[in-house]
């Protein structure tokens, strides 16, 4: 903090790795970062989507910015180290990482079949924990950086309508708490992002509209701001914080009878 400013300095986001970059929220984050002058390394699963994203970002970027990426299925944790190496090489260093990949599972399918449930836990939690372990060690060594992960308000409390997704997001949130604690002395910020309902293709099956739904643009704006600040836990939009505070404090005896 400078002597003359009450605000802590913004953390630089000049070289950023986006994992799950073709998700609707990550794509908006990418546009915002590129507009601020960042170089990006984007990892996505589908080659056509990734190419479309990279073309678009290249049109937006200035001549000194580097926009690159590669195609990978992030549930394959054997490739994680190699991917992070490639990103570091392309960017010439890493200032920040956003982990944005994930799926919204059908709870009924997960309830019916244990393998489906485990697959979802693998996609939404275990693959994230693997990536985080690799990234934490590198950023800790370089003594600066931002690690941001898109979680969900669903991870704050288990509900019958999507507790497999909620459990995965909750696991990641607790892992991030520990990581934040570990890296606090290493000048590495660990940002847990908890969006509410966002109008994206992932939520195509839901009935949308109404005041609780946010656009990916709005959520992306909040994510970039939180990453610059090095915030800890961010609800997006902000009103989910009081909503989840109430939901978390409903006594279990009552909660278990509610249809949520």
């Amino acid at each position, binding site marked *: 903090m400078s002597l003359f400013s009450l605000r802590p300095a913004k953390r630089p986001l000049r070289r950023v790795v986006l994992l799950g970059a073709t998700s*609707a929220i990550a794509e908006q984050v990418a546009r915002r970062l590129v507009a601020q002058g960042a170089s990006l390394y984007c990892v996505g699963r589908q080659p*056509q*989507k990734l190419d*479309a*994203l990279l*073309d*678009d970002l290249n*049109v*937006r970027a200035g001549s000194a910015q580097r926009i690159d990426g590669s195609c990978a299925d992030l549930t394959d944790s054997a490739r994680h180290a190699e991917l992070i190496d490639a990103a570091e090489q392309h960017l010439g260093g890493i200032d920040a990482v956003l982990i944005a990949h994930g799926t919204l599972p059908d709870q009924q399918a997960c309830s019916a079949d244990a393998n489906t449930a485990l697959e979802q836990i693998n996609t939404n939690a275990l693959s994230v924990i693997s990536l985080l372990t690799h990234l934490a060690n590198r950023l800790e060594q370089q003594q600066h950086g931002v690690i941001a992960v898109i979680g969900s308000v669903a991870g704050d409390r288990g509900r019958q309508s999507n507790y497999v997704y909620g459990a995965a997001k909750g696991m990641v949130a607790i892992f991030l708490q520990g990581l934040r604690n570990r890296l606090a002395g290493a000048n590495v910020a660990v940002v847990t992002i908890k969006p509410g309902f966002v109008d994206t*293709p992932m939520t*195509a099956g839901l009935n*949308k*509209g109404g005041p609780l739904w946010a656009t990916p643009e709005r959520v992306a704006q909040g994510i970039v701001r939180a990453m610059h600040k090095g915030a800890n836990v961010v609800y997006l939009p902000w009103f989910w914080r009081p909503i989840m505070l109430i939901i978390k404090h409903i006594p279990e005896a009552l909660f278990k009878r509610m249809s949520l």
Partner: protein
Amino acid sequence: MTPLSWNRLPKVTPNATYALTQRGAGVPDRLPRPLLAHGNGRSYGDVCLTEHGTLLLTRGLDRFIEFDPERGILRCEAGATLADVLALTVPQGWFLPCTPGTRWATVGGAVANDVHGKNHHVAGSFGHHVRHLTLWRSDGSVIHCGPSDPGGWFAATVGGLGLTGLIQQVELQLMPIHNPWLNMASWRFTNLDAFWPLNREAEANWPYTVAWIDCLARGSAQGRGILMAGQHAPAQARLPNFKESRKRMPIDPPFSLVNGISLRAFNALYYRQPTHPAGTLSHYVPFFYPLDAIQHWNRIYGRRGFYQYQCVIPPEAAESATAELLNAIARRRQGSFLAVLKTFGHAPAAGMLSFARPGTTLALDFPNRGRATQSLLADLDTIVSQAGGALYPAKDARMPAALFQSGFPQWEAFSEFIDPGFSSRFWQRVTP
């Protein structure tokens, strides 16, 4: 939430909506047909609506594909808005060579309605600046076409109201500018007779011209108004600062705030605004898009919505028919807030169903007062039809089929190009 068009009329619900996010991915077979693309809902009426089948929401297709800053050629997905394009290209010295009065329309919508701007007399319509289109057909094929396409797909799709298939990509030729500003001038004219010579002179000297008319004024003041003209400012202009004002219409009143009293007051004040015969500088945003400054301005017309009415009258009949139209409106005291008068140039139409053609165009809007409004519009139809004119499909929710067919004589030839898996409420209304 059911998608609407900008005038919020008619309110119809499709069987399904489907948000497109990936260009080239096509549309799943399970979705009910017919299909119709719906961009940012900036057209008025029902060219972007359907009561059957599936509305394809195209705003997720908003990526840039390639931009050549040397030549000003941009390729993008069709769901990008004109605002998206301008934000990218204006700082690099390129402007849309043709722009409608809102920058929230999508590029695909601008093509499908072959929109025009204040510079039609020198630049033609939007379709004249499209170099290439990618069209997805419901049989899974993809058609690539440009202005020299011998198959006719290009001429059918430009102004084709989204009926020839889904426009996925558009390549545009932009025009060079030196900065985001315009030299503009404005003059007050005391009645319609004074407008014509003033307008002729302005058109000979300026690339952009448009007039606002006080359509409540009667007698010797009938057709009084303000003529505005502009040109892109030179490189060495001394430019002021510009900060865009962002206001929004926060509520959705149950009735229209545009009524006899508010209109009379507005028009009287607007007519007396200071004019700039000697010229001044204006940033491109307020010059081209004055209404974009108020988000949701369409709410001022209340929940019942409003009708736009835009006609074009051939040159021979323009002066007399325009006077008759203003007479009819003033007689019924249903004045319009935004009465806009402009003459088109002689560029041959870019599309088979293009609206812009030689003549004078008058654009009006009226709060929806049910029968009273319908019967006024029917009176206006008679005048337009007798003068050999046409109405603008992009701004129509009610024109009779006969008026469409007489105004767009190529409609039958056009219908050969319609994708059998596509339709709109508009098309079902104006054709057998």
